[in-house]
């Protein structure tokens, strides 16, 4: 079960949901943010979750990330049923199994670039002496070798998202969950970020789940498009267009 990442033919499900629901009570009304979604995402896949705002795509991503718990149904990520995990174990899941990037970057403003990237290592109780080197390595990977001692407010949007990507990579997770990663970026910077995400998917074998409302962006990078509306899965199709992109290599 554990060695399957580099095998492109592994049919192992990295993520599997069964009739998962997430309902909120808001005032008097019940909001069905996620309403009975069943899907399976294979290890190493690059999947886009598409839909209009309020379609439940971010809520589904939060369930996979272990930031939220389903009202009913199951979410199994890397062989673990998240609904059964304790709060502590769920935190460990977020720390080691999942890396997240957000539309608004979500860097801690009082910390420098390198401190932001190091932060998950502190929670993972990695030795001080190793942290700086690991953080530098991750930052090199996202092409941010300089300005490490600047605060996020002193960086451009692209640089901030690179920092967030480096932070998502630092604990070497198997999953990269991206919630509108280019939403706050101009198109050129957005492309740079998307290329980085694709590179992680290919060279590191990370499973990528990206939430976006941009059909074109999803079509350009993802190999599978899942459409949601009103908390329900409405379409799930392989994206042949993405395969045609030369950098996608020999992926089936």
């Amino acid at each position: 079960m554990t060695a399957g990442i580099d095998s492109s033919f592994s049919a192992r499900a990295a993520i599997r949901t069964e009739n998962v629901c997430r309902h909120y009570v808001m005032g008097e009304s019940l909001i069905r943010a996620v309403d009975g979604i069943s899907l399976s995402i294979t290890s190493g896949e690059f999947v886009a979750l598409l839909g209009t705002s309020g379609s439940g795509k971010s809520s589904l991503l939060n369930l996979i990330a272990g930031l939220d718990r389903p009202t009913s149904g199951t979410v199994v990520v890397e062989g673990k049923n998240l609904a059964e995990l304790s709060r502590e174990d769920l935190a460990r899941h977020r720390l080691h199994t999942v890396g997240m990037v957000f539309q608004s970057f979500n860097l801690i403003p009082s910390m420098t670039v390198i401190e932001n990237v190091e932060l998950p290592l502190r929670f993972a109780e990695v030795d001080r002496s190793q942290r700086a080197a690991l953080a530098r390595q991750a930052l090199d990977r996202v092409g941010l070798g300089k300005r490490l001692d600047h605060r996020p407010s002193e960086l451009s949007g692209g640089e901030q998202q690179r920092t967030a990507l480096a932070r998502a990579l630092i604990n070497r997770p198997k999953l990269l969950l991206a919630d509108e990663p280019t939403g706050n970026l101009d198109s050129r910077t957005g492309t740079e970020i998307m290329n980085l995400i694709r590179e992680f998917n290919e060279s590191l074998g990370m499973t990528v789940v990206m939430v976006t409302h941009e059909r074109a962006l999803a079509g350009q990078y993802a190999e599978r498009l899942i459409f949601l509306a009103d908390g329900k899965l409405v379409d799930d199709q392989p994206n042949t267009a993405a395969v045609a992109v030369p950098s996608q290599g020999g992926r089936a």
Partner: protein
Amino acid sequence: MKAYDLAELAVRNLRESVLRNSLTTVGISVGVASLVAMLSLGIGLQQLATRRLVRSGLFDTVVVTSRRDLRNFNRGDDAGGLDPAHSPVLDEPSRQKIEQLPNVMEAYPDLRFITSFTYDEKPRLTMAAGVPFSYKTNDAFEGMQGSFFSSDMAPEVILQKSFAAELLGKTPKPGTEEAPVAELAKPLVGKEMTMRYAEKVDSATPATETNESTSNESTESAATTYSIQSHELKLRIVGVTDLDPDSMRGPVRARVLLPLKLLESLHVMQPTTMRDTTQATSKTPTYSTVSVRVKNPGKIQLVEDAIKKMGFNTFSILDATRSVRRFFTVLDLFLGIFGSLALAVASIGIVNTLVMAILERRREIGIMKAIGASDYDVKKLFFAEAGVMGLLGGALGVALGWTIGRVINLGTNVYLRSQDLAPEQIWFVPWWLVGSAIAFAIIVSLLSGLYPAARAARLDPVQALRYE
């Protein structure tokens, strides 16, 4: 998270809103300062009240007297127990019996008498007393100039400073400052002085010397017959002490102090000898007072009770200070409560600051949770912030309290001086107070951090990260 990382993050977070956190920390320090100032004054006053008693080195001493002693008829608190007329005589066998009691280190007779000392060819009458050699190691002679007796039988003498001043003709006029002990000791230590004394000779053999000799022809017993012979003894002055003979009990309550064993060997006629002549039925020496030193001051009550059971009267410093100590315990308690009130107010400040910090740092907490921080990590972080504020506030508060105490002390002394009174140390900060005040501040801060930390830990990351 590791402790060091936690502390670092906590300090960093506190620096982020430095004004608010500084004000909270100042709040804590004012609380701690009031606590420290109150308690240090309480402790200082207590020390002022008991300093002399402590200095006497008698906290471990029980003074034993016979119930037959006429003086005791006047003491109401000794009512009860054996009828004085039938109570035992405080003689040598009794002394030995007392010395055998558990927890007793030694029991020695109180030898004191008025006699003549000649220095610089001028004789002077004064009270002399024997001091047991064991006093060498207790702190009764703290502040003495010169040295203690070289041995238990050495013909040496320690002078009380007023007598030393008298010998040098430097007796201060009323209202003027006394000369310092060191100044008095310099010309005297090493000099010789002659003591004239009356030796009591039990006259089993008739006295051959007729000089001042008296024969007591008792019809009852030959044992009560004695004669008195006058002697002179050269003594070397080895030390001058600043003990105040009027405020002390026990062997140091005299102006000239000699080694006890030396005095015993001289058989000096005691003021009680005459009286004992009419009472004593044995040949062994009887004593007006026996001082009992206890191995451990905590056992003093046990020893007192045991001696009382033997039929003697006892007195210890413990009796004299019991009510004083009770008063100060109550005083300290009240001062501590008032001091703690300020700290309680400060703890509300901590709760407020941390709850505000949660509101302000909602998003940050959400981010930390999203990237893998557990509830426990977040809780620890807020706890650490409260703890750091407590530590800083505690340390600052001790410094502040120390300063306040000093200022009050200074002000009091200015007043005392204006009233022509000697300055006193009414304020004292012991190390345990420093340590426990800081520890108390940290504990109060941590308790105040309980609710905010739990609240921060429970924060839902999805809510916290929702775009505003």
